């Protein structure tokens, strides 16, 4: 099944510049419906208030981290099926394994390039 490029994508990062970079890359790849949140808490509120086809989240944010957001999403009956990609500078193996155990669909370590993001989107969502 083809990926619905009009589906809402939630980008979560406490650095506006990083949100802007991911937004531009997603736009280039054809995704047009992109929303943003500055931390896990705000992201959870948005997720509970709407229907999103994908979450792309940073890890290190306050007051709620991306890891905590992932755990909350996977614990929610409404949200648990939402694809979740972590994009973070947290590159220790313990972080990757913890995120995988918590149910992350893929993991991108910063700094990353457009090809890496595209590859992970295809791995999680399918060809587009």
């Amino acid at each position: 099944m083809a990926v619905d490029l009009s589906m809402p994508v939630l980008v979560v990062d406490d650095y506006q510049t990083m949100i802007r970079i991911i937004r531009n890359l997603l736009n280039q790849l054809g995704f047009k419906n992109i929303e943003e949140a500055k931390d896990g808490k705000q992201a959870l509120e948005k997720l509970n208030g709407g229907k999103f086809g994908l979450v792309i989240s940073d890890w290190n944010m306050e007051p709620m981290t991306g890891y905590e957001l992932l755990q909350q999403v996977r614990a929610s009956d409404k949200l648990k099926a939402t694809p979740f990609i972590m994009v973070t500078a947290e590159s220790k193996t313990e972080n990757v394994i913890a995120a995988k155990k918590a149910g992350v669909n893929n993991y991108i370590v910063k700094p990353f390039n457009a090809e890496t993001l595209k590859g992970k989107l295809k791995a999680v969502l399918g060809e587009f």
Partner: protein
Amino acid sequence: MAAAEAAIKIRSAMEQLKATGVRERPLVEVLSLSHQMADAMTAFFGSLDKSIIGEFKYLADFIQKARDEISGLQANDIKDTRLPGASVELDAVVRDTEKATESIMAEAEGLMAKEPTDLAAYKAEVDAAMMRIFEACSFQDLTGQRVTKVISTLRHIEERVTKFASALGVTDAASQESAEDARKRELLLNGPAQNGPATSQDDIDALFA
């Protein structure tokens, strides 16, 4: 005369007097024994005073050394000038970096949004945008100088603290983990690794294969 030797002499003199009875001894002998006791006690208290004086001198020297080291630490200079100065420099680095990033991204987004019909005009716009991007990149020179100043401050503090700790033989006491540190540990908030990612993207991909 050592304290133990003086004590033995005094005890011996006292025992002699007790054993024979002071009234039955000739006055000269009693005086001689008293003189012997007085000599022994003088020697004893003399040695006692010297050892106490020695201890006090050691303590005074240590306190003076500590004062010199604390003075050399230049804590007020670090607190009032160097650390606030470093903080100002780092704030400026963040501000300059954000400003440059904003300029570069705005130029890039502007070019991406264009739908060129006139290629010559489009090339001129691209060239102008590239020049503005080059200009924005000049922030790196300033931030580099600012970061160098901050590094210099940190090295200054490191040298002073190391010298202070070494001179006074300071060792670290066991510290209790703060709530912030506990949260960082529990949520695996390690921050960016030095010299590139701790785990490469290829290794991460292998875990998800």
